């Protein structure tokens, strides 16, 4: 029992940290923000799924993908296709020349629903596809590249090209995908109005819940042998290979898992924001998601969530007040996080702890007066 608890939550410290995050997300923010702002936070949290995947893939397995937007997009488009079909019932689309198909198809003189849209009439299929489609794509790409030992810069460049390819391909096939505008006007899920504030609250909490679940699952994976193998692979890949492990499959698995997480994020994005478009798939969002993980500290699961929230809050504050400065700030952030804070927020927290905890210890042991009850930071020496 104890072992399972340790593996899932990373011991007492892990539980406390996860508890703090959950409390911030599910109690503090909902009580202090109006639904419009909370919905924004919910949107950012869907990016945190991608950042979480990047911590595993980049931070732990050492493989940087600049194409995670592809998987976010695949998950999002799967969800959007279902919602669009629901929104395009024959009655609400009766003014079209072909009622019952999505409006953008009608505009593009398509008279019959394309075959690959058909299965997305089913919600169970859609929910499955949200996870499975990104995983399959990642599996094929991963096997092709990791078996041939493509890694490092080459993997980054190829995945970046994939992000470009997918966004251009969606853009170029308006009749089938909605083109540049994306899939819009998504209103209901099985007749339930997803734009009502009641629904938005529920979706927000669903997102938080799934995110915490994803963190616990990742924590569980990393705490066992798999985590040690990833660490060993970054250290001495050859030694791992000559200890009888198929290194490429470990990378493929991590890539697939990160892709599946991104897909879930994409689907939750669509549910909360009500649309998806190729601009969320391409090069720019994909690399921005890397910076969310980097700000959090690359190797810290919780850091990825904080990093995502921080950068996106900064982004919306900047673009509301000084839109022209935003790119300067973002560019500066990329440079600063690489040159000055390679360990991100997690590194800064660690530094503060190291500086503060001996100081606290000194206070506790040397001072004759008992320090009054509150200790601001948990000491790392006490696990």
């Amino acid at each position, binding site marked *: 029992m104890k072992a399972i608890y340790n593996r899932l939550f990373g011991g007492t410290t892990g539980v406390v940290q996860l508890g703090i995050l959950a409390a911030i997300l599910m109690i503090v923010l909902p009580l202090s923000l109006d639904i419009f702002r909370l919905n924004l936070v919910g949107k950012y949290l869907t990016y945190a799924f991608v950042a979480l995947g990047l911590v595993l893939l980049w931070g732990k397995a050492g493989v940087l993908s600049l194409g995670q937007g592809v998987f976010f997009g695949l998950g999002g488009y799967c969800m959007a296709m279902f919602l669009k079909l629901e929104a395009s019932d024959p009655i609400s689309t009766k003014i079209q020349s072909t009622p019952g198909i999505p409006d953008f198809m009608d505009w593009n003189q398509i008279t019959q629903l394309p075959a690959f849209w058909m299965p997305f009439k089913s919600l169970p299929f859609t929910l499955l596809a949200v996870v499975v489609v990104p995983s399959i794509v990642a599996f094929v790409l991963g096997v092709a590249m990791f078996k041939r030992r493509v890694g490092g810069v080459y993997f980054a460049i190829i995945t970046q090209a994939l992000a470009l390819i997918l966004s251009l391909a969606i853009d170029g096939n308006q009749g089938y995908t909605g083109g540049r505008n994306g899939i819009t006007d998504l209103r209901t899920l099985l007749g339930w109005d997803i734009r009502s504030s009641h629904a938005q609250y529920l979706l927000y909490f669903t997102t938080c819940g799934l995110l915490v679940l994803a963190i616990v699952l990742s924590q569980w994976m990393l705490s066992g*042998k*798999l985590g040690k193998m990833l660490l060993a692979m970054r250290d001495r890949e050859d*030694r791992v290979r*000559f200890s*009888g492990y198929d290194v490429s499959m470990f990378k493929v698995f991590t890539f697939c898992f990160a892709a599946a997480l991104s897909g879930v994020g994409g689907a939750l994005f669509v549910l909360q924001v009500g649309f998806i478009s190729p601009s969320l798939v391409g090069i720019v969002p994909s690399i921005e998601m890397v910076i969310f993980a980097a700000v959090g500290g690359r190797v810290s699961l919780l850091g990825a969530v904080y990093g995502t929230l921080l950068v996106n809050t900064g982004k919306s504050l900047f673009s509301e007040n000084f839109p022209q400065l935003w790119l300067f700030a973002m560019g500066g952030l990329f440079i600063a996080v690489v040159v000055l804070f390679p360990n991100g927020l997690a590194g800064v927290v660690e530094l503060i702890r190291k500086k503060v905890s001996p100081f606290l210890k000194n206070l506790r042991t040397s001072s004759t007066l008992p320090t009054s009850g509150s200790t601001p930071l948990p000491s790392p020496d006490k696990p």
Partner: protein
Amino acid sequence: MNAKTDFLLYIEDLGVSFDGFKAVDGLNLYVERNELRVIIGPNGAGKTTVLDMICGKTQPTQGSIRFKDRELVGMAEHQIVRSGVGRKFQTPSIYENLTVFENLEVSYPKGRSVFGSLAFRTTPEVVERIHQVAEQIFLKEALDLEGAFLSHGQKQWLEIGMLLMQEPELLMLDEPVAGMSAPEREKTAELLNRIRKGRSIIIIEHDMEFVSRIADTVTVLHLGKILAEGSMQEIQHNPNVIEVYLGH
């Protein structure tokens, strides 16, 4: 052609060339069960390249390597390891960020697939085995130390220990005593004589004194070809070998 066919390792006509340069050329090598074979030779003779080809790191351009009657050429590295071949590298290659215990643990031959590793649990049986090996490689006291804090000699032993965890039938060690102090060499010879029971070992080594203490058979490689083969006694008196080592 050799009439005997029950060798553990059976290498015939092995060769590899890098952009026209033949690093190993038409090599025949037969290793018996329970044999301890030492390969010596001057720098650039192709010793490490031969080990690289046996364990799949380098693909040969010609020839065949049969281990327990299975062709190794063309097999992936991890499959070769799983069939019972262990390889130690020239520079100690351990996981610096893991403890000695964890180094040995990840070398335990269970849970080698992705999902196997997710389900893997460190059972008392595994712990028992780790302690056993740690005892053998003189690192029982250092189990909780991170790899990075070990001395050079201890790292060499740890890597040998990681191979022992896999219980290989063929163990290949590339310069196991390089950079070791005299007492450490002493202990390593002792270790090798203990672990050679029940398996074959191929060692590349330069230290002749050390070689004479452990070897059954010595193979001398020169310019990618076999120059001589036999007991240490025979080798030391072979005129060709003397020529290569002292001639120039």
